[in-house]
């Protein structure tokens, strides 16, 4: 459903961050996107969402990402940002959640119903009328995920969903993410979390795809990970 063909993306014209990246994500797949700091994971997601200029071809469901198709593309993709503070901009969780559906033309009743459904699915009903700036980091992350789910995207992009969470909240997010039936593209340095949530892994190194294969293979390969400035997941490193 998501396809990159020889994609080069850049912030400044003469310094491309992604270089010749190609891969395909099928509908329903859960793909982990890993790589050291600065490898280009966030950049890849931003390019996919049309927040960054690119060369080459990016398609979602066969529709190429261009200025004209952006509304259609963005409607299909939900993006959970690395920093939840930048994700939530309305005063309360409820208002934030209802923002997307209403913008995409849902009626108020319909949007309300969706919000309630998502909140009860994530067991967050008590957060509904809370003020965003008064949420803890974990609550904020869960609320950000809820905001994105309320838009009923076909695929979900998550940028470091477990960063800065305590073990319990991390576990909560992992379990939630694992249950989501949508197509998923998840970046993280938390390789144990990638192991728990993804079947396939794409390894980026300095803007290029260094490896792409089953999680089983890549996450167990000490050599591959170490040459790309990473370490084995904790659960394997003890072996």
């Amino acid at each position, binding site marked *: 459903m998501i396809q990159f063909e020889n994609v080069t993306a850049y912030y400044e014209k003469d310094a491309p961050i992604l270089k010749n990246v190609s891969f395909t994500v099928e509908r329903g797949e859960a793909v982990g996107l890993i790589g050291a700091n600065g490898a280009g994971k966030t950049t890849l997601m931003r390019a996919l969402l049309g927040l960054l200029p690119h060369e080459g071809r990016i398609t979602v469901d066969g529709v190429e990402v261009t200025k004209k198709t952006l*509304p259609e593309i*963005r*409607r299909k993709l939900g993006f959970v940002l690395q920093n939840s503070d930048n994700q939530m901009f309305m005063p309360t969780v409820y208002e934030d959640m209802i923002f997307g559906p209403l913008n995409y033309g849902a009626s108020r009743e319909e949007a309300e119903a969706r919000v309630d459904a998502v909140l009860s699915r994530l067991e967050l009903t008590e957060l509904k009328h809370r003020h965003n700036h008064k949420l803890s980091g974990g609550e904020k992350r869960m609320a950000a995920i809820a905001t994105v789910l309320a838009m009923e995207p076909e695929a979900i992009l998550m940028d470091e969903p477990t960063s800065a969470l305590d073990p319990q909240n991390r576990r909560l997010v992992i379990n939630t993410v694992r249950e989501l039936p949508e197509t998923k593209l998840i970046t993280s340095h938390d390789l144990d979390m990638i192991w728990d949530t993804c079947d396939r892994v794409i390894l980026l190194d300095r803007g290029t795809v260094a490896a792409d294969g089953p999680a089983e293979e890549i996450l167990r390969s000490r050599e591959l990970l170490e040459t790309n400035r990473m370490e084995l997941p904790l659960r394997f490193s003890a072996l």
Partner: protein
Amino acid sequence: MNKMDRSILALREMDALAAGDSPVHQLHPVAKLLTTIAYIAATVSFGKYQLSGLLVMILYPALVFSLSGVGVGTCLRKLRFVLPLVLAVGLFNPLFDRAPLLTVGGVTVSGGVVSMVTLMLKGVFCLAASFLLMATTSIDDLCAALRRLHVPSLLVTLLLLTFRYVGVMTEELSVMTDAYHLRAPGQKGIRFAAWGSFLGQLLLRSMDRADELYGSMQLRGFSGSFAYAGSKRFSGRDAVWLILWALIFALCRSFDVAGVLGALLMGGNR
């Protein structure tokens, strides 16, 4: 908590106030916006000696304060930085305009004093009315109302983003000042030599964050129309509110309703 944090809270406090529930909060934002504009127009249009007439205009803020449950104290606290400026505007009038205008209880009052008080009251009234609008209407509803009045989408989006941007900027400022002071113990304020890079950083950082925020709004379908806000219908009640106040303001302006009252209040020497 440093000063910056408090001002963020202040911004958010406006959000919280606006999220309240009262007969005024429930009014349609367009009705409130237009009433406020009519009020300000009427208030400003009083002549500089028409003090008694102007006094009656207190009716509107007084009533809205009590109906909305927004505290006068809150208002004064929020406006404490602007109020002195407004009050200072008329300060010199008594020096220039010394012609006696009226006598109250045997004391002769010069034109300058009257015009000074008039000017101050105008300022205070207009500020109070704007504050009440902000405190009973969310920024999104307000923007939606402006859009419905056909104010260009670009301007309205700009207003909305400015509101959000100020919040983001104060947040960044707060983080940066904290970081600065942790490494510059005992320093008051920020060393002059560091201002340049400090401000540069602040601008870049808050621009990045504002960019992400705006991106996040776009990703959720925001395109300058305020579909998500102000789903309220303009009801009979809203129309009554608007028309009634417009009539009252017109009445206060054209007939000397106030003259009569004023005569009673001030001894009738005018």
